[in-house]
Every structure is written in C-alpha cells, then in structure tokens.
C-alpha cells in the first residue's frame, strides 16, 4: 500500500504535464516540475531538510507508540509496513530547529505513512510540540498533509481534533505565533482542527485542501467537480488561506513572518 512518492529511478514523470525529468535535477529544484511548476509531494524528512537551516534539527518523541483496544492484527501489520517503508515511527515528525537563524518548533506530516491520518500518536506528538513551544516560548510551524482521522483508531482518532485544538488555545494565550502551512493534500480531521487554526495560514500551489475529499463530494452531489475546486488558489480566493507560496520562496516567506513576530528583547 505504501509507495514512495518519487520513484527511485533515474527519471521522474510529472503527473501534471507528463514531462520526464532527471530525478537528480528535480531534487535540485525542490521537487517542483521544471516545465509546469507542479509541486511534487514531499516526505516529512525532505520537508524539514528544505525549510530548516542545515544541522539545526533536534527531533522530539521519535519513539512514541500506542497500544489500544482498537488494535487489530490487520492494523498492526499496516503500521509495521509503514514503518519499514518510511523509517518513521508515525505519520508526523516533530522537533525544533532554526529557520534563517530563528528558532522554531516544527512539525511535518508524512503522507506515505497511512495517508498521514491522525491517530493517537500523531495527535500526541502535535500536542507535545505545541507544549514545547509554550514552555520554550518559540513560534510554531506545522506543515500539514493528511487524509483525515485514523479511522482504525475509532473515536480516539476523532478526539485528537479536540485534543490538538485545546493545546493551541494555550499557545495562543501565551501570545505565541503559529504558522500553518497546508500542503497536498490536507483534508478531514486534520483540516478541521489544527491545520485551520493558524494565526497565519499558507498553502503550497495546487495543494488539495478541504474537509471532504473530492470523491466523497462527487458521490454526494452526483456531479463532477470543476477544475481547480478545493485547490490552494481556490481557497485563497475564497478567503481561507493568507497566501499561496511557491516552494522556492517558502523558506524566505517563513523567515519574514518569523522576523515580523520576533519578541523584542528589553533591557
């Protein structure tokens, strides 16, 4: 089920314009198609490498796991396969590092891991990252991507929406900044909780962002959705995203936002 987003082969085909490009070349261009500008999905490690200053990352909670009444052999197998395929313990990486010299707490979800769905471990890692930001008085940057709630964990996955949203209230009351970056795709329980609760919400070009997935909507309304529906640009036009930021400008934009919110050192 879990397949690498970019095949390890030498050539990569753009899913939008079908252009073949050298994988090495594509990587150099931050995985943005040279011909049409399509933003390939990034893994969480790639995302962190892209945005943090080299050598500044310290990871949190990389060994957190979960044993619950919802476990089934089928689900445990799925988790094991995802762990082997990604070398991650769960669908989010959290930690702290620096963006253009400014310290931040950072989280990045990884779509390769059970569609980056939010279960107890994802929710807990996000909450612990928020709490760390509160304690250390650091800004928080979350790169969201998710298929929604981890339904294999039943109602406990649903409750992660409340758990993460509650933690963000404490962050907000501490007067700390939270920048939410929506990447392809951000839907379901993640979009309907922490992803849309940022002080500033950025999105990557072309990212699918919504509550329901397009297929579910098409089944509900029994018609095809128009081109560009639920894409980042569409959300920006409708007032739900502050700006759509192309990947090559993402780090500089984050740096600018962080600088604008830097606490003045008194005395």
């Amino acid at each position, binding site marked *: 089920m879990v397949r690498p987003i970019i095949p390890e082969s030498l050539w990569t085909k753009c899913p939008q314009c079908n252009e073949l490009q050298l994988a090495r070349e594509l990587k150099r261009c931050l995985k943005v198609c040279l011909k049409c500008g399509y933003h390939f999905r990034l893994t969480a490690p790639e995302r962190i490498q892209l945005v943090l200053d080299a050598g500044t990352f310290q990871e949190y909670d990389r*060994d*957190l*796991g*979960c*044993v*619950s*009444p*919802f476990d*089934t052999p089928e689900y*445990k197998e799925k*988790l*094991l396969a995802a762990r082997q395929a990604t070398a991650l*313990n769960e669908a989010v990486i959290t930690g702290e590092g620096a963006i253009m010299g400014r310290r931040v707490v950072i989280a990045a979800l990884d779509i390769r891991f059970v569609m980056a769905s939010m279960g*107890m*471990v994802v*929710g*807990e890692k996000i*909450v612990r990252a928020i709490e760390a930001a509160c304690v250390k008085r650091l800004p928080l940057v979350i790169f969201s991507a998710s298929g929604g*709630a981890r*339904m*294999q*964990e*039943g*109602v*406990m996955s*649903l*409750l*992660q*929406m*409340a*758990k993460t*949203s*509650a*933690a*963000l*209230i*404490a962050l907000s009351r501490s007067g700390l900044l939270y920048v939410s970056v929506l990447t392809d795709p951000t*839907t*379901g*329980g993640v*979009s*309907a*909780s*922490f*992803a*849309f*609760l940022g002080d500033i919400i950025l999105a990557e070009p072309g990212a699918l*962002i*919504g*509550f*329901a997935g397009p297929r579910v*909507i098409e089944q*509900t*309304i029994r018609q095809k*959705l128009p081109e560009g*529906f*639920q894409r980042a640009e569409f959300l920006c036009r*409708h*007032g*739900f995203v502050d700006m759509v930021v192309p990947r090559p400008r993402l780090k500089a934009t984050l740096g600018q936002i962080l600088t604008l919110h830097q606490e003045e050192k008194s005395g």
Partner: protein
Amino acid sequence: MVNLEFERPILELQTKIDELRAFSREKRLDLANEIAHLEKRLRELTENIYKNLTPWQKVLVARHPGRPNTLDYINYLFTDFLELRGDRLYGDDPALIGGIARLNSRPVTVLGHLKGKDTQENIARNFGMAHPEGYRKALRLMLQAAKFKRPVIAFIDTPGAYCGMGAEERGQAAAIAQCIQTMLGLRTPVVSVIIGEGGSGGALALGAGDRLLIQEHAVFSVISPEAYATILWNDPARCSEAAQKMKITAAELSLLGVVEEVIPEPPGGAHRNPALAAQYLQEALTRHLEELRSIPEEELLRRRFEKFRKIDDEYLKEGNAN
C-alpha cells in the same frame, strides 16, 4: 413509523394484544387477565431485545425516524424557547438550530443538530447535516452565552457535516475547527448529549465541552460503519462487522472514558416513550449543570483542557511499544 427487522416479534405481539382488545370490546367479553398477561410478556420481550442489541442494531435505533429529535427534547425539557437564527456572515442553517430557553426556570443557551421526521422535513433540514453556516451560528451563540453567563446545552444528532460544493467553498473545515476551539475555550459550562447519531467532526463540533453524555441507544463514531467498511474493506455490506470493531455504543464509549455518563432510555428505546426519555435526560442535565455551576471559571477551563489532554493517556507508550 419505520419498523426495524429485530423489532418484528415486539410488533407482532403488540398487534395480537390490539386484536384481542378489539375482540373483547366487540364481543363484550372480559379478557382483562389475558390482556394483562400478554402485556407483561410484551414488556419482557421488548426489554430483552433491547438489552441485547448488537452495535449495528444500535445504529439503526439511533437513526430511527421516530426517535425524539432535538426539537422534541427542547419542547419537553425547556420552557420559553426562543430560536435565534443566522450566522451573521452568510445565512441560517436549518440543520443546526439554537436559541435561549429556561431549564428549571434558569436561562441556558441551547444548540442542536436537527434531523427531520419524514422525507419532506429531512430535505428541509438536510438530514441534520450542517453547512459552515450552522457551525458559525453555533459559535456565535456560544460566545453570546458566555457573555451573559448562560451555560450551554448541546444536542448531538447528525450523520456528519455536509460534504457538498457550497460547504467546501464556504470553509467547512475552518468552520468546524473554529467551532470546536470556541467550545473548548468557552468561559461558561458546556454539557453535550448525544441523542442519536454522533457522526464524525460534525458531531464533535458540538461535543468539546465539560461533559459529554450519551443516551443508552445512541452512537458516536469517527465515520459511519458503512463508510468504514467501504474504505477499509471495499465492502459496504460488512457494516455490522465495522460497527463491532469501531466501539461506537454508549457502553463501550463509557468504558473508553469518552463519555461521562450513559443516560438510560425507556424499555424499547426513546422512540417508544419520548416523554420518559426526556425525563431521564432532564434529570442528568440538571445534575451535571448544577455541578459545573459551582466550579470557578478558571478551574472549569483547566479541567476541560485536562479532560481532552488526558483522553488517551493510558494507550500511549514510550519506546515504540507495538
């Protein structure tokens, strides 16, 4: 009234009693003893069937069109209900209603998803599936409640938030996120009760308060059993198995610590005796509200945050325990 397959023995016996009664009237025969005997059997049969419902059968009871809805309970429980409409941004959502009313003569703010009783009503109420306007109306009325120090009582009864084009265009995800967060941080007591179907984020939007109560035959789940079976097994027919796996019944949710209390229903479910179901509901709501009113505001919020912070504490393990 829609009949559920597993209720057939109940309905058959009921028909027999009705026939006997008519017969006794017609022939002027005294069959009181026989009728009383059959009625006793009917009570036992009903209780027995309802005590042993499978999770999937609970889903069917929770969705029963004859089951009392939010408006029924508002009429039974409160006096002076004044419906307040609109989100002040776009429109008014008939699938999620709200207003001010008195519970035991004290003002409260009431919110609730509203399903219809028949097809026509359901079309008007969008089957209890709210658009962003509904969640934004709830958000507005919650802030109003906090301003006037009124507690909030929320009735949860929805298959989920609506998945349509308009809902997406107007920010369904953002509306739900803001509604949940507003309820979590609200400076007044909030008691929610699941009275039927508690489906997904659309249900949680009204369930992130101080207490989450559930009626005996109501259900609460991350996704419908049909959708779970379709997505995980590509087979919607396995919904009964899905319902079992998902732990969606009141008793299971109570064991998980997700709900604070299971409110009993009359024998045979709330749809057999809505007045009595309402009485049980009123008793529980009154008790929880009294407890919460005595807690200072900061302490109330601290406990609410703590409740959600610790909701899955016992399952999380350091050291990749899998």
